[in-house]
Every structure is written in C-alpha cells, then in structure tokens.
C-alpha cells in the first residue's frame, strides 16, 4: 500500500529532445504517422529484398498484436503462440490447394480452425493455475509442429508449397511484392487497431481485471474462465490470420518454420515492448524483426542477447521496457446529471 499522501504523477525531468520524443510517442496521431511511414517506405527502398524484410516485419507485428491480447492484456503466458500461426497457415494452404481457391476464400475455414484450436488448448487448461498454462502451451506448440511433421495432409517434413495467391481478379492478382506489401500493411493495421480498441472496451477491461486480480474480478461478477477463453480465442484468430498472410507471402510452409524459437521471439516483442501497451508492442516487434537484419554479423549471439535481455528486463522493469501508463482525463463536468441518473437507474437491479 502506498503512504497516506497522494503522489502526483509529476512527469520525469527530461531534456528537450527526450521530451519531444516522448511527446511524439504518446501522441494520438502516432498510429497514423506509423501507418503513413509504412506506406511511404517502399518509395525509399523497393528492392525485392527490402520489401521481403518489411512484409515479414509487418506480419510479425500482427503476431505480436495477437499475443499482446493474451499476455499483455490478460496476463496469460502463452509459450506456443506460433502454433496458431501454423494452424492458420496450414489450413489456408491445404484448403486453397484442395479446392484451387485463392487464399482469401479460405478465411472462413481458417476462422473455424483457429477458434477450435484456441478452444481445444484453452478449455482444459484455463481453469488451472497460470503457470501450468504456460507449460501446456509450450507443449501444444511442439505437438502442433510434430503433428504437421507426421501427417500426410500437411505434407510431412517438407510441408506444402505452391500455395495460391491471396486474391485474383481476372488478370490482376496480388502477387507483385509491392502490392502484396501494401495489402499486408492494411490488413495488419486493421488488426493492430482492432486489438488496441478491444483493449479499451468492456471486454478489454475485464481482461485487465483478470490480469491484476482474478479473485477481485470474480467478486465483481466477471466469469474469469470465460473472459480468459475469449482472450485466448482472439489471440488464436490474430495468429491464424497472420498465418494466412505468411503462407501467401512465402507460398510455401513447413514444420521447421513453427518452432519454439518463433514463439519465444514473439513473446520477446510483447514483453520488451511493454506488456499491454499496443504502441510499445508494435515497436518491440519491429525491433525484434528488423534488428537481426541490421546486425547480420552478430547473428550467432543475437538469441543469447535476447535471452539475457529478457532476464535483465524482468529483473529491473518487470512490466516491460515501455509499459502501459494508465491515465484518463479527470471529470470533464460535461455529463449532465440526468444522463448519470439514467445510466445508474438503467442498470438498476434492486
């Protein structure tokens, strides 16, 4: 408990540059600025290599946005998140090849399969202590990979290749790297916005209540099990859609792509970025996916460095490097008293 005096949220002293940067990062328009930057980036460099790197990074951002729902909002540690991407990628790959459809039309199947996957893994385990969930998801990630490796429909160890394009209208298809990049950016932007908005809704608040104190949440009538399952399913769907983009981007998938390392990298993006803070998570994802491209020489040590960073970050900043700083406007005085009374009496159950 804090002392008896109210500690005001005095902004930390910082230099003018730091203040500008921090002002920019907290700005309302940051999302739009980031989107504009992503859309303009190909004007600077549009080589196949850089488009490939940027598309991959965007897909990684989407994964991080999905995992942020589970880990950041709801406080559930998922160590096998990449499995949902695998479910999405394999489902769309198999269905589109079997029926010779563009990937876009596999979306209903992907939705069904990822929600099923979320339920299968979440339903039995979300009743348990949160640390059990962590290790069960770890196992689930491995099992998904091993299953894909063993089955014939998934193409065994060599996987599936020749996956159709995302969408084809007559002669025009989304296959030039630049067009695909733009499509990816728009889809990812939508999902990032959607998860940020979910975070600021009744459901998003319930996730945070569960994260902060499950007992207190239950006492308020929040069915914590259902709420956690919802977080899990949303996370699964985000991962599944990232999988569709991934399959479309690479046109080939194999079990080797979906190893624990990938789950751990997404987790790092979420944790280092700042659990629950969607902006931080996007930055974290960009850093994790782009940094290795810049530091190719150090590739042997980069995972070692990530591991150490994770430990150091948790020891010194257990809420992430850029945690969410909850803040709301004080009362505006704009609420007319009648509206308040109406609001209060509408829910009246007495």
């Amino acid at each position, binding site marked *: 408990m804090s002392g008896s005096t109210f500690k005001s949220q005095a902004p930390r002293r910082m230099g003018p540059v730091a203040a500008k940067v921090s002002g920019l990062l907290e700005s309302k328009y940051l999302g739009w600025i980031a989107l504009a930057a992503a859309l303009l980036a190909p004007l600077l460099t549009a080589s196949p290599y850089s488009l490939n790197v940027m598309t991959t990074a965007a897909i990684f951002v989407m994964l991080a946005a999905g995992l942020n729902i589970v880990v950041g909002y709801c406080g559930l540690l998922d160590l096998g998140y990449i499995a949902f991407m695998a479910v999405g990628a394999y489902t769309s790959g198999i269905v589109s090849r079997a029926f010779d459809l563009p990937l876009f039309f596999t979306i209903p199947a992907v939705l069904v399969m990822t929600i099923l996957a979320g339920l299968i893994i979440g339903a039995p385990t979300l009743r348990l202590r949160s640390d059990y969930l*962590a290790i069960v998801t770890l196992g689930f990630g491995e099992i998904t990979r091993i299953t894909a490796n063993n089955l014939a429909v998934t193409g065994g160890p060599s996987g599936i290749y020749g996956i159709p394009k995302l969408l084809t209208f007559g002669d025009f298809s989304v296959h030039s790297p630049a067009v695909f990049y733009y499509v990816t950016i728009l889809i990812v932007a939508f999902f990032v916005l959607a998860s940020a908005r979910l975070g600021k809704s009744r459901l998003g608040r319930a996730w945070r209540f569960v994260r902060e104190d499950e*007992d207190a949440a239950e006492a308020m009538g929040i069915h914590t099990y259902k709420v956690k399952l919802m977080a899990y399913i949303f996370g699964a769907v985000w991962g599944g859609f990232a999988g569709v983009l991934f399959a479309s981007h690479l046109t080939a998938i194999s079990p080797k792509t979906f190893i624990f390392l990938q789950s751990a990298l997404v987790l790092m993006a979420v944790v280092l970025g700042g659990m629950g803070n969607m902006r931080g998570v996007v930055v974290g994802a960009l850093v994790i996916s782009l940094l290795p491209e810049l530091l190719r020489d150090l590739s042997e040590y980069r995972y070692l460095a990530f591991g150490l960073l994770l430990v150091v970050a948790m020891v010194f900043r257990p809420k992430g490097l850029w945690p969410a700083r909850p803040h709301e406007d004080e009362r505006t005085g704009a609420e007319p008293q009648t509206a308040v009374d109406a609001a209060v009496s509408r829910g009246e159950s007495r």
Partner: protein
Amino acid sequence: MTQIIWDGLFVGSFYALIALGYSMVYGIIKLLNFAHGDIYMLGAFIGFVMLTSMGGLPGALGIGALLVVLLVSMALTGGAGVLIERFAYRPLRKAPRLAVLITAVGVSFTLQYGVSAIMGSNPRSYPVRLEGDVFDVLGARISLPQVLLMAIAAILMISLNTYIQKTSTGRAMRSISLDMKGSLLMGINVNSVITRTFFIGSALAGAAGVMSGAYYGKIDFMMGFLIGLKAFTAAVIGGIGNIQGAMLGGLVLGLLEAFGASVFGGEWRDVFSFVVLILFLTLRPTGILGERVTERV
C-alpha cells in the same frame, strides 16, 4: 511386452531424475523453472568438454573415470542452478507471477543459445559410448550400461529421499513448502534452503545429462527442451511439489510412453505424453500423490 516395460522404466528413470528438480523447486517457491531442462543439457555439455579434454576414457579407468566426470558435472550444474536462482529468480521473489515465468523463459533461452554460441549449433558425438553385454531377462533385452545407469539413478534418488526425510535441511525444505512466512518466523534461513534446493535439483538434472550423453552418444543445445516438458509432465503425474511423486511420475510416464509408442507408433510418442499431461491436468491436477489445498483469499 517385458521389453516395453523395461524400456519404459529405463527412460522413466531419466524423467524422474529431472522431474525431481522441477518438483522440489516448485514445492518450495512455487516457480516453474523452465530452464530446468536446459540444466540437463548443460550437464551433458560439461561432461562432454571434460571427457573430450581427457581424450575419451582411458580403457582401464572406464567406469571410475566416468563416475568422477559425473560428480564434477553435478557440482558444476548445481552451481549453475544456484547462480541462476541468485541472479534471475531471487530479485523477483515478490514480483508478479508473469514476470517470473518470463524470466525463466529468458534463462532457458540464455542457456540454450549460450551453449550454442560456444559449442556450435550442430549435434556433437559424445567421446564415450557405454557399451556392454546384453542379457535376456524374461524376453527383454537388457544391457549392462542400462543396468548401471538405472542403478546410479536409483542411488541418487534414494540418497535424496533420505536427505529430505532425515536431515534438518530436509525438514526445513518441507516446512518452507508448507508456509514460507511461518518458516522465516521460526528462524529458518529460507534463502540458504532455497539455494540448496536449486543446487540439488540442478545437480540431479546434470547427472541425467551426462548419463544420457554417455548412453545415447549424441548431444545438442536443444536436447533439454522436450525432456524438460516430459519431466514437468512426470512431476504433474506424481503430484507437483511431491518428491516421491516426482520419482513415481517419471516411471509412470516412461511406461505410458513406451506403451503409447508401441500402439500408435514412435513418431507419436511426444504427442501421446502431451495428451497424458492434458488429461492429468484436467482430471486430476493434484497428480497421484498430491493433495488438494484451498488457496487463501
């Protein structure tokens, strides 16, 4: 049939050795030490480095030298466990669960890729390979090395059990697992007991690492990943936090897996044991020997 049982028990004794560390640490500080499987990997590599620098085993010294290597590796992995606890887990003892779990993942990552950076990421061949006569007992092929390794595992587990039942440290461990605050008040040096727990658990995992390197002959930096998961499953089957449960759980999981593999095929072995884990967690989360407790609100 007897072959399946024997194989199951053999693999199960490895699971049991590693599950012990999982269970002891969980019992005392309620931490799932994800890095525990990687301590096993570390043990295998420490043994590898020592044996390589000795130029393999001089024939005459054979088993004796291997035992020395085993003991030194145990001491070193035990020390590694203590350091990990001191610098990664202890600062977070009062932190939110999520932060601690993430730290454990970070430690696991650090161990894996630290070893990979030093030793390379390709599998290495162990400089010794235990070979010996094969007997036929009731239709099962049992080799001398298998008997030897199981004997070592059994000795380690029996000594641990005696230690926990008979010594004051053992009593302190049991008392902390029941009530950490109370134990502090009773004047138990909680930190020192936790340090010992980590030492013992990690040493046992390190021993298992050396033994499996010497028996299977191949090691790599990811070898602790899946077995860590299996050891956790074993600990859950036995009742996590329960020492005898961990041993029992290891053997039970070994047997279940051996039967599962013979029914569904070897490539489904890991999937099968995972399904066993889920079933246990759903139907009997306290495991075979665990007790149900009501958490305070």
